[in-house]
């Protein structure tokens, strides 16, 4: 019994590690967009986003065996959104990221809709908002983003490549 549990534990850890290795970078970028922190090459550059992601991933790990058939990526994304929404007031201060000029809820909608490519209806369901509200938030966020390009810092698209030698 105990041996079987240890074996299950090892298998779960292996599967989970493979999942994190594959999807972690993308999820961390999403979390970074949410917290509004400035992305960086140095690991540990985005402590808020890391904290958010570790919390979300921990739930994914705890649910791993009950998730058979479910998509761990989608589950983690939902956890991320829910955790961010719960603690959004903590992320109101601008921190120099691409979306730092937006309200937390606008960031959330934009990240889910455009970065993650989640459909409008599903975004609305995830956030518990009416579809029209999601549409309005996205439109407003896009307008704000396009009218005020980040004044300082590298071009957002080039951030990841920066510093690679």
């Amino acid at each position: 019994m105990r041996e079987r549990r240890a074996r299950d534990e090892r298998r779960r850890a292996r599967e989970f590690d493979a999942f994190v290795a594959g999807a972690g970078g993308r999820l961390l970028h999403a979390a970074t967009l949410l917290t509004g922190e400035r992305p960086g090459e140095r690991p540990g550059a985005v402590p808020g986003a890391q904290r958010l992601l570790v919390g979300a991933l921990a739930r994914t790990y705890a649910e791993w065996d009950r998730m058979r058939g479910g998509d761990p990526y989608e589950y983690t994304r939902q956890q991320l959104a829910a955790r961010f929404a719960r603690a959004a007031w903590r992320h109101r201060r601008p921190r120099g990221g691409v979306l730092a000029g937006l309200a937390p809820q606008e960031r959330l909608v934009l990240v889910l809709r455009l970065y993650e490519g989640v459909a409008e209806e599903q975004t609305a369901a995830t956030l518990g908002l009416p579809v029209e509200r999601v549409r309005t938030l996205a439109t407003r966020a896009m307008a704000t983003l396009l009218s005020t390009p980040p004044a300082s810092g590298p071009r957002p698209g080039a951030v990841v490549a920066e510093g690679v030698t």
Partner: protein
Amino acid sequence: MPLPDRKEREVRRMLDGVQPLPPELGERARALGARVDRRRRVLRRCGWLLLLLVVLALVVWALVADPWSTAPPETTPPVSW
């Protein structure tokens, strides 16, 4: 191309990217997740134990008190006006 689509594409480009992952992040998540899982398991076990105890107590009480076997042996005393 319609305007909203172009805007969407531009914003998408601004958002795009992947953040380098600190090597120990997965491990941290795993440790935290294992703790959550363990806590849940303990909680569930406690729940079952409590249920078992309640059932046991009920059985013991039923055996001792025998609440359904005998009807009250005496009738009520006649009412005298």
